[in-house]
């Protein structure tokens, strides 16, 4: 035995259930680490990190107008995170929220074009919301049907469905539904969501959805079925559950909620339909859902946090004249650290102790 092999410097061991307060401690620490790393980036651009962070907070929450805009950004994030939570609980990887939002907005717009002027505003809005739910629901149901029937891969399927529906809206936008130069007309006032406390009432809808989803997941038979399937499909079959049907039902519900989010964005925030109606929300909300551990109430905080960052960092480039990509870097660092810290919650590192090393040499 020429060279002696040693124990590796660092080893990993799985933790057996860390207590919740320690886990949240690690999560908080990860945010601090991210802020420190972000400071380095800001330093490199030749600015003062404290000033920069001040601007971010100020830009998102500094005035009533800013706060309102931030909340507006948080609404679709929260709604969509709620929508995908049951899918993820079921381990059905729905990354098609983007498309389901678009499908919902499209369906709502279609109904709006049929009914506007003929019925009172309340009826019109309800009809639009219902159409959006059905539209989004069907867009979610299709991949679930194929998965249940032929075991297709839902990740690819839901992703591809995004491009189809976004393409359809792009075509409508420049083709049949165009108003001027590839844009659609603004919605009639009757088709816009009314404002409550100066923000469109979508915030009330998503808060209701938060409560609904919490009860649905925790106390309903459907929620129980979803949890069992997420743990083991075989156990679900053993318990007499119809796994394919439950998958389709859950995806319809998920798509329907995404569709309602699409309706809220089109009718409440944008007052028009465009191919960019989802604007990446379908993907960002996956982060929200995971960071919240699929808990609807935690999602409120996380979606607000992301909205603050998004809004706040965008004022960085105007105030400090740094490139826009710096704000992306800061958001990226934060997400990386927060998602990465789950690793340290599940595993611990064991360093080679000097004690063992000495013992080895002594022999």
């Amino acid at each position: 035995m020429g060279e002696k092999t040693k124990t590796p410097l660092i080893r990993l061991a799985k933790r057996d259930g860390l207590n919740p307060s320690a886990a949240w401690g690690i999560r908080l620490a990860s945010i601090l680490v991210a802020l420190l790393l972000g400071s380095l980036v800001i330093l490199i651009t030749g600015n003062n990190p404290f000033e920069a962070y001040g601007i971010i907070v100020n830009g998102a929450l500094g005035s009533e107008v800013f706060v309102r805009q931030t909340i507006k950004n948080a609404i679709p994030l929260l709604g969509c995170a709620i929508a995908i939570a049951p899918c993820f609980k079921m381990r059905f990887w729905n990354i098609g929220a983007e498309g389901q939002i678009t499908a919902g907005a499209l369906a709502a717009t279609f109904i709006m074009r049929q009914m506007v002027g003929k019925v009172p505003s309340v009826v019109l809005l309800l009809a639009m919301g219902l159409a959006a739910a059905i539209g989004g629901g069907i867009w979610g149901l299709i991949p679930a049907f194929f998965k249940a029937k032929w075991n297709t891969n839902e990740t690819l399927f839901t992703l591809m469905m995004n491009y189809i529906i976004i393409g359809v809206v792009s075509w409508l936008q420049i083709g049949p539904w165009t108003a001027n130069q590839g844009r659609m007309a603004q919605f009639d006032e009757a088709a816009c969501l009314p404002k409550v406390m100066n923000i469109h009432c979508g915030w009330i809808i998503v808060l209701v959805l938060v409560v609904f989803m919490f009860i649905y997941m925790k106390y309903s038979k459907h929620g129980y079925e979803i949890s069992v399937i997420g743990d083991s499909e075989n156990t679900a079959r053993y318990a007499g559950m119809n796994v394919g049907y439950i998958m389709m039902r859950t995806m319809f519900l998920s798509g329907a909620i995404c569709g309602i989010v699409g309706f809220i964005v089109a009718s409440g925030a944008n007052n028009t339909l465009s191919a960019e109606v989802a604007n990446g929300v379908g993907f960002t909300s996956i982060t929200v859902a995971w960071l919240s551990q699929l808990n609807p109430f935690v999602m409120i905080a996380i979606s607000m946090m992301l909205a603050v960052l998004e809004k706040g960092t965008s004022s960085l480039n105007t105030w400090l004249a740094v490139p826009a990509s710096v704000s992306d870097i800061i958001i990226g660092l934060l997400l990386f650290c927060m998602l990465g810290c789950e690793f340290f919650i599940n595993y611990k590192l064991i360093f080679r102790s000097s004690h063992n090393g000495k013992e080895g040499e002594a022999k």
Partner: protein
Amino acid sequence: MDSCYAIELRNITKRFGEVVANRDISIGLKRGQILSLLGENGSGKTTLMNMLAGIYLPDEGQILADGEPISIRSPKDSFRYGIGMIHQHYKLVDVFTAAQNIVLGLNEGGLNIKETNTRVQEICDRYGFDIDPAKKVYDMSVSEKQTVEIIKVLYRGAEILILDEPTAVLTPQETQKLFAILRNMRDDNKAIVIITHKLNEVLELSDEVAVLRKGTYIGTVKTAETTAQALTDMMVGHAVALNIDRPFNQNQTERLTLKNVTCYDHEQVKKLDNVTFTVNGGEILGVAGIAGSGQKELLESIAGLYPVAEGSIEYTPPEGDVKNLVGMSPTQIHKAGVALAFVPEDRLGMGLVGSMGMTGNMMLRSWKNGFGPFVDRKGPQELANFIWNDLEVVTPSTEFPVRRMSGGNVQKVLVGREIASHPSVLMSAYPVRGLDINTSYAIYNLMTEQKMNGVAVLFVGEDLDVLLELCDRILVLCGGKVSGIVDARTATKDQIGLLMTSVGGKEEA
């Protein structure tokens, strides 16, 4: 350096989280000797040997090879020190031939089939193996696969062989063949360790026995100077009666009759072939067979979880009309009033929800009963509390995820729930696998209690000694066929062993 151990473990400790799998264990392996590592399931035998195989690193303690301290950081290191481990679950590539599997991963600058075959043949001749190097693994029986695994480590020049539960999947005849080979290797001055919990094999084969109990080293004795009873005492810490109480239920009535049941898997391979038998209320019908002979498919097809292609499964309730269960889903079977309880082999993957606590798992049988769209947690909560006390389940609360309970407690939760459903047919697959002796006996007693209550019990087992002591009759499966049904009170192990192989099956037919 005769007295020197080939491999010596000194004060080895290994922890997994809170659990201490091995506590301060010191054992030496000598050349030209077969050492049995004896202990119940979960006593830390495999963990200890995995540290020699380079799969785990010890937390504390030292490993010495020929007196030199070494550190085994990977399976590669392990090979370098001449250690070869044959794991319980074989690690072979199905679509490769025996020879390809044997040289897999060796860096010898290209594959020379002819030379490999010659060397494989040499090893075979030397120790008495019988294998065709060109045979593909997917065509092999379990015993042949094991042979390939053993040749694989010998080919790499292993001087120290560790076999983890090598006889678990073998028939008694194949076991004898393996033992002969192991004796040849011992005579060739190799150090051999077999990990086992079967006393008769220990006594028959090994020179010395090292006993572990709950992760602690109890002692090493010479096989010639010990007895089965003495070893059992070392293993479990106190004397345990080896007899299972087997009362006879006079009131047996026909309960479940399978007629010509045939099943195919999704690749159209026949899994059950013309299976016909009856199990009566008030008896335990054991099901024996080599692993994968159709046991799983048999139970699942009765439970409505596996498609039946031909034949009928007739259920005769204590009162009422005969029903054919073929084509019914589990829900339909339940609705038809058939009280079927099923303890599947895969406890956490099929019978339970690992991430939920006892209460959530009780709900698996009753989740449909709640009011409107909501689940009822009260009833399951009460049932969970009852089982927690009645079966002495060790868990901090009824909400503690069952995945994090020990194997024995997991099984108590599952069996407890199934029995609480007041079944008229109780099916269980390997219900004592991985359990300590006390829990195993608790399970046997529960099965017998159910039998005396008039329940038809179907018990799929792997330990023939247990089957012979527990059951009233034993059905033997071989390749999806019923190769015989014997009276457990008069049958012998050899008789069942023969039925488990196709030879016996043909003789019976």
